[in-house]
């Protein structure tokens, strides 16, 4: 039996999912994770390295890895790819200048073989900011229509401030991952 199948089996037993949060620095990853977890979001310092949260969500245990987006540490993202079931790519919808950078980093990430099976949720965050690009516009800039056919993905507009869109996004992600991994239950 391959190592992969052993690990999948363990995970299936415990109904665990491993979710990786990535995106440029300042996009709102940490705020989103705390918000989903119902925690205080009034003081958040920029993330050095990473935070890990274990969250119970429906009948699943999510291990959420919130990885710092600073340029100096983006090359470390790959250390977290192994066994990732769900990928959340967070976009600051008001940061028009860095959208190109954002597209490039996302494209690079999706080339990563170890992530090829992971479901992809794109959160167009900060929709509460007047003038933020809509999820439609973000989808165009990121050229999501050109995505590999085999990839399961969805883009959702959200705001970590108001909380809107977050549950819609995570509900989809968890369901999508569950339908792939726990199908044999």
């Amino acid at each position: 039996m391959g190592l992969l199948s052993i690990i999948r089996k363990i995970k299936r037993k415990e109904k665990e999912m491993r979710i990786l949060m990535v995106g440029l620095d300042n996009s709102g990853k940490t705020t989103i994770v705390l918000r989903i977890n119902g925690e205080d979001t009034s003081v958040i310092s920029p993330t050095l390295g990473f935070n890990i949260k274990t969250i119970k969500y429906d009948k699943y245990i999510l291990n959420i890895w919130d990885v710092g987006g600073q340029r100096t540490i983006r090359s470390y993202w790959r250390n977290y790819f192994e066994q990732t079931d769900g990928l959340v790519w967070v976009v600051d919808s008001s940061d028009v200048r860095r959208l190109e950078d954002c597209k490039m980093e996302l494209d690079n990430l999706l080339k990563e073989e170890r992530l090829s099976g992971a479901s992809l949720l794109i959160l167009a965050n900060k929709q509460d900011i007047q003038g933020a690009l809509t999820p439609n516009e973000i989808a165009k800039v990121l050229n999501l229509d050109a995505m590999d056919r085999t990839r399961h993905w969805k883009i959702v507009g959200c705001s970590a401030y108001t909380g809107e869109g977050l549950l819609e996004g995570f509900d989809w992600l968890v369901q999508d991952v569950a339908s792939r991994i726990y199908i044999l239950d």
Partner: protein
Amino acid sequence: MEEDQSKSRTKDIRDESLDPITEKKQAAMLERLSNLHQSRLQESISRKTDNSSPLESTKSFLDRFSEAKRSIQDELDRCRLVSDPESKGRLKSDLEQLSMSIAELEKLVSENSYFLPSYEIRSSLTSISELKERLENANSMLLPKKKFAFKNKAAKKDQNNATSTAETGASDSVSVDIKAPETILPEKLNIQIRDSPGFRNRVDAVLVKHFKSSGKGDFTLSDLKSCEVRLTGRLRAVFIHRLKSCRVFVGPVLGSILIEEVEDCLFMLASHQIRIHHARNTDFYLRVRSRPIVEDSSSVRFAPYHLSYEGLDKDLQDSGLDGDTGNWGNVDDFRWLRAVQSPNWSILPEDERVSIVKISSAETCSEDS
């Protein structure tokens, strides 16, 4: 389609005042999220009271962690040294067992991460990736025929790119799909994106703008030289890019201020988060809720916010920025991860600070004018 639904939703929250239904929905949403948290806390408390509780102290975590780490290392060493055929036959399953032990260890860290100090999390995870690296080395050394990998297709590419991995220092030597960033040129975006509001490409100008106190917008300052900028009222986000020899005074920002490439400037800013990249020879007068960060910067100095305009106190209060947290001086240099003070930033000596900066309302023209 998926994207279409989100469009109407985003329209709702962009309206200046929320309609009652949306407001109610949002309140319900926040409540649902906070209930989740409450029930989790409850669970954690009840877990604490029965004896199967997780290790809720750093010390016992560290003890358990280092014990597990040591036994994994010992087992790895043993595997490397086996020579008799019988043990060799068992190697594959032994190594698989080791991989599971490492996964267990990773889970231990994750489960305890909510109370562990971030330094401990960081060093634990560094240890784990070292163990993984050693395991993968052992795998490729001891089981040469069947390559250890979580993927098969990329195996061929791996060999071609082997040198680039070494350069980028990935800790797991088997995976090499990422190319060096400079080999991937960003395709030019072929769709026209509207620019966000801002002051751009100006020299020797005084740039003044007032925002409504219900401010929900963002604003950009970019490519300015020898300018003085005064932004009063409230904003949700500010982006600052490529400024030289400028003086910049900004009212409270509910979200974050992102600063890149500034030189010989003075900034007076109030915000929930302030991130400073590539700044040189610049003074920052800050009111900030979280710890400001600097990255790739030098000769930057910090002092408390010292601005005054009519209505500022109310604006600060409405933005959750009333009362100084003292964080203006708690700067984290992301390029300097040692306990001793970073040489890149310092506290601005009191006798070198500017006195309070007043902006009279006559000077500020309205956003709508």
